[in-house]
């Protein structure tokens, strides 16, 4: 197996036994990118020279020493571009600083390799909203890899990256991971500093790993977390070794299956794969019971008020003055703003800024924004109640299989509705993970299905333990596209 197709854990063993060097890994990843990325279109840019230089200087005695990690293009790495897949930042923006999580990865010996495609400013579920090009699903290149971290998932699932960082505001790590057959972890809100992540919706955004295995997700998470003075919402909580639960069994662990999730509109083949996984979890000694999350039906509306509202304020920083695009030949300062922003933002970003501005505007604030914040409270309390009875909430990650490019092109609402399983964890600030749980034949190709587990706040250890126990007793994570 090529080095680019292997897990962090496997590569680290070979590095420590001197079978391979960091340069071998980087060269192999670069060669895989050269061969596969013209088809997958996962990367927006790759600085091969820098990656090779970093590999030559890598310290393999450190926990992630010599491991290259791909970075979603909305996380700042000093000296690299950070376009957010937007024309606004495409022309001449170079990051003047590192995101906190990037500093932590570097301190752990990892190196950053490549900028990964995404939906513009992380708004979307397919990477079709990238201003540059749509990325492709490694299992069927006619289909989308999901989004917004679609480039990250496509690269990891297509074995042209070892692991990658993504960001998750309403499912943007978990959904593309499900679509591309990888593991995607959204940590508890506040676990990972958001400093250096270009903000979309500040009360929901969270950085996390997209990896080939659950163990790798734990290994990366070990070097992302902690209190950061530059992000007032980062949590001052003890950071455990997230690998401590790996390898423990799940006998007696309680899993809840929300009855509200058995809605119409979930692909029957996905439901069947998830039901098989549930039976499997019971076989491992997990106790599965039906639970109720009574406010599930307002999750999407709540999210699509709150996230655009926060985005409309966050994206007001793009004013064409300090960085990014600036319109030429404008008449006055108002025209400068109006024209600069019209030229810089793509259609989905404009839609969400307009929606967010509308729900916050005079006369509508109480009708939409205040109601959504109240509904958010009810959704949070649903989980509080559920976690009195169970340790993990189970569901499909997505209601549909990876779809063909263009399938949702002119109906924004139809694509918003597909976020119903992933949104609640963001609204409630809970950690969630997607793990591969089977394949469905569709149109002659096998497409991956993801199982989502959501855990208690700050209890990623139990979440990773459960996900790992399930993963290791199946062979889904070992299957490779092509």
């Amino acid at each position, binding site marked *: 197996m090529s080095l680019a197709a292997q897990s962090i854990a496997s590569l680290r063993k070979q590095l420590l036994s001197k079978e391979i060097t960091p340069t071998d890994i980087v060269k192999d990843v670069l060669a895989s990118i050269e061969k596969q990325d013209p088809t997958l279109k996962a990367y927006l840019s790759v600085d091969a020279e820098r990656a090779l230089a970093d590999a030559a200087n890598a310290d393999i005695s450190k926990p992630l020493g010599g491991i290259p990690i791909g970075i979603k293009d909305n996380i700042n790495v000093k000296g690299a571009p950070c376009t957010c897949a937007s024309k606004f930042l495409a022309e001449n923006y170079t990051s*003047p600083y590192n995101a906190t999580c990037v500093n932590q990865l570097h301190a752990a010996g990892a190196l950053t390799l490549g900028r990964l495609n995404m939906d513009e400013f992380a708004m979307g579920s397919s990477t079709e909203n990238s201003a540059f090009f749509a990325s492709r699903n490694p299992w069927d290149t006619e289909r989308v890899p999901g989004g917004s971290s679609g480039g990250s998932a496509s690269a990891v699932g297509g074995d042209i990256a070892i692991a990658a960082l993504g960001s998750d505001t309403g499912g943007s790590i978990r959904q593309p991971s499900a679509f591309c057959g990888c593991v995607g972890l959204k940590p508890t809100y506040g676990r990972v500093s958001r400093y250096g992540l270009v903000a979309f919706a500040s009360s929901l955004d969270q950085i996390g790993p997209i990896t080939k295995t659950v163990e790798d997700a734990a290994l990366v998470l070990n070097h992302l977390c902690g209190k950061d003075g530059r992000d007032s*919402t980062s*949590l001052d909580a003890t950071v455990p070794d997230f690998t401590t639960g790996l390898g423990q069994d799940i006998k007696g662990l309680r899993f809840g299956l929300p009855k509200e999730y058995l809605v119409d509109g979930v692909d029957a083949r996905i439901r069947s794969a998830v039901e098989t996984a549930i039976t499997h979890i019971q076989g491992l000694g997990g106790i599965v019971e039906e639970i109720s999350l009574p406010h599930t039906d307002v999750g999407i509306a709540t999210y*699509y008020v709150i996230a655009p509202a926060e985005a409309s304020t966050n994206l007001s920083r793009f004013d064409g003055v300090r960085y990014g695009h600036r319109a030429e030949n404008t008449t006055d300062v108002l025209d400068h703003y109006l*024209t600069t922003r019209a030229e810089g933002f793509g259609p989905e970003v404009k839609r969400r800024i*307009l929606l967010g501005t509308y729900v916050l505007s005079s006369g509508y604030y109480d009708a939409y924004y205040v109601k959504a914040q*109240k509904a958010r*409270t009810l959704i*949070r309390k649903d989980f509080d109640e559920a976690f009195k009875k169970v340790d993990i909430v189970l569901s499909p990650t997505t209601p549909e299989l990876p779809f063909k490019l263009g399938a949702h092109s002119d109906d924004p609402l139809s694509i918003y509705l597909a976020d119903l399983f992933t949104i609640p964890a963001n609204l409630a600030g809970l950690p969630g993970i997607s793990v591969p749980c089977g394949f469905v034949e569709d149109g002659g190709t096998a497409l991956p299905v993801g199982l989502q587990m959501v855990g208690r706040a700050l209890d990623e250890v139990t979440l990773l333990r459960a996900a790992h126990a399930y993963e290791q007793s199946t062979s889904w994570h070992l299957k490779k596209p092509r």
Partner: protein
Amino acid sequence: MAHHIDIQHTAKLARLKLTDQEAVKYEAQLAKVLDYMETLEGHDLSGVELTAHATPIYDVWREDVPVEGLDRAEALANAPRKTAGQFLISRVVE
């Protein structure tokens, strides 16, 4: 319920210039999304407190001592227009 959105007013608040075609398209799309928001009416929300953040957050203070930040050249490096070590903006005062 059919929503009528004054899309051009909203666009001006958002500092976004819209073409006529964009205005028509976004108005229709947003009306559909706002119709869907009616689902928020499905539960009794009276007396429910608001959640702005899922986890409690507090003001964070640090000691009042200067710390290293970007120097002037770094801070200006990405500016589309600059002059005399400052950001150049459009004329604000008539």
